[in-house]
């Protein structure tokens, strides 16, 4: 029965439809994997009883031909997505006992389409981290080798997909938090265009950068799952009121691709295995008829500094809501209101979250606002303009997902070194562009990833390119 968990989403749907197995059997198989591999620490909450009950309902629906798109498919949600009457911790002590009074739009859509929620996955605290070591609930281990980080912040989701503990998982990406763990765990991760997926009920980190997305076994699975969560939501004022593409058909259509390569950036890659792997991947696509064009993104090297002003600035404003009074951790040791604020926040937040709040507070404070925050916003405009120009020439852009393969847990202690993990993923967030990471090879037993960035709302195009690459290679296949 364990073999069921290794099937792709489309194979699982087919199996359920033809009654080769039931949703209950499939759900039991995933729950077994969650239990037997609990030492990976991928989940913060598991809803065993409820998932089994819902799988029986799904089986009845299938028997009565009332099959919704994801009827009976067991999935996992990053613990940043609120689910009504369920604990939603965001990986923080601050929300350790927070029972959400409402559900996120992402959860509701998947639930309404018949998906079974197995549980909530572990993550870096408030999605701030690139290694999954900042979670209050302990670090997550990479299923390929437990010495290594699964990446972050959606590391629990990426590791759960890789460990066959769910059919697919949701994630969020503020500066690479879907794509970097996808690359480190050898799975497929897509962050759509900013505004494509509703942020309603998704706990905020940096509101102009945060975007929900999918971690899945392959591009085809990601296309179907993304289609299910995409679309306008009036509850999110930044949601795009634009039609959702037919990703499932687009993925197999005969598309003409002109792939842009930011040559200067690629030439500067210091890790030879990453560079070689990237060039090989491009060669594979070229041989299959993809046109390759060199492009210039002259300001891209300023993405990292600009991001580490904008994201902390927005985080310091967003996390001001945790005051110990209305919800979240409330200190037991406070004799004045001021002390209640100070003690609740000091006790409730972890080191990395505090660091980011401090940086954001500093950059927004009197005397520094123009030199840091305004400057970063101007650079953001230059980076977006670079992409706008490039997309007049090309249909997608390729970059490595990360500057290296996964690193050993505990091996990076300098914050800047950790932030540099996101050097290739951040530009897409600053410009609000869709981007997908897929496995492109192995180095020293650990996976490498390549990412394709698309123009606004061109999710179908990058999914098509990713699927093309996966049809030509087997880097995305695993046991």
């Amino acid at each position, binding site marked *: 029965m364990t073999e069921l968990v290794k099937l792709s989403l489309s194979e699982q749907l087919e199996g359920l439809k033809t009654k080769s197995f039931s949703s209950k059997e499939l759900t039991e198989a995933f729950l077994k994997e969650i239990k037997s591999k609990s030492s990976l620490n991928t989940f913060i909450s598991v809803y065993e009883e409820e998932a089994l009950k819902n799988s029986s309902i799904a089986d009845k629906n299938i028997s009565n031909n009332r099959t919704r798109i994801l009827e009976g498919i067991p999935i996992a949600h990053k613990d940043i997505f609120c689910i009504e009457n369920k604990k939603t911790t965001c990986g923080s002590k601050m929300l350790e006992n*927070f029972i959400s*009074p*409402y559900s996120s739009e992402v959860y509701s859509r998947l639930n309404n389409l018949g998906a079974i929620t197995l549980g909530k996955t572990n993550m870096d605290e408030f999605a701030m981290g690139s290694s999954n070591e900042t979670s209050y609930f302990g670090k997550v281990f990479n299923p390929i080798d437990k010495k290594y980080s699964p990446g972050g912040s959606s590391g629990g989701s990426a590791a759960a997909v890789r460990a066959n503990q769910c059919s697919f998982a949701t994630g969020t990406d503020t500066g690479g938090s879907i794509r970097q763990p996808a690359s480190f765990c050898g799975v497929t991760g897509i962050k759509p265009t*900013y*505004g494509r997926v509703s942020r309603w009920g998704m706990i905020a980190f940096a509101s*102009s*950068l945060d975007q929900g997305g999918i971690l899945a076994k392959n591009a085809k699975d990601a296309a179907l799952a993304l289609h299910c969560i995409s679309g306008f939501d*009036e509850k999110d*004022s*930044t949601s*795009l*009121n634009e039609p959702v593409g037919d990703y499932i058909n687009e993925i197999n259509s005969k598309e003409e691709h002109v792939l842009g390569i930011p040559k200067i950036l690629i030439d500067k890659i210091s890790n030879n295995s990453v560079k070689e792997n990237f060039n090989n991947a491009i060669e594979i696509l070229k041989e299959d008829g993809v046109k390759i064009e060199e492009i210039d993104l002259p*300001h891209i090297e*300023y993405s*990292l*500094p600009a991001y*580490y*002003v904008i994201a902390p600035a927005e985080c*310091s404003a967003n996390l001001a809501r945790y*005051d110990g*009074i*209305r*919800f979240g951790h*409330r200190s037991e040791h406070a*004799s*004045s*209101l*001021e*002390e*209640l*604020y*100070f*003690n609740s*926040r*000091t006790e409730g*937040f972890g080191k990395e979250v*505090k*660091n980011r*709040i*401090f*940086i954001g*507070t*500093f*950059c927004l*404070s009197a005397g520094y606002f123009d030199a*840091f925050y305004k*400057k970063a*916003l*101007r*650079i*953001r*405009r*230059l980076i*977006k303009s670079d992409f706008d120009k490039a997309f007049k020439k090309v249909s997608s852009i390729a970059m490595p997902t990360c500057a290296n393969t996964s690193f050993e847990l505990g091996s990076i202690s*300098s*914050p800047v070194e950790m932030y540099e993990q996101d050097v290739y993923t951040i530009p897409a*967030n*600053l410009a*609000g562009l869709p981007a997908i990471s897929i496995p492109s090879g192995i180095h020293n037993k650990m996976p490498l990833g390549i990412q394709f960035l698309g123009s*606004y709302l061109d999710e179908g195009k990058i999914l098509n390119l990713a699927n093309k690459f996966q049809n030509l290679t087997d880097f995305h296949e695993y046991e």
Partner: protein
Amino acid sequence: MKINKQDLKNISLLSKIKIDDDNSASLITDLESILNMVKKMEKIDTSSVEELSHPITTTQTLREDELKDEIDREKLQKLSKEKNSGFYITPKVIE
């Protein structure tokens, strides 16, 4: 970029997070290293560039101004440890 103890005090006051004296040296090292990385932004002239605070330039969508009953007050207040008759209770503000 140098951060001194007075800067730390200001940051702590503004963010309402305590900074222990024991941690202040390592915190200064961390913050300075981050700010030095960030200072690379100075290398480019952006004097003629307009700020971009949001990646998508389309106008925000506004919904009809209709009364909705999606979230229940009592349910929201259940999340607070201290409340009374629909009010949130805090330690005394006025002596």
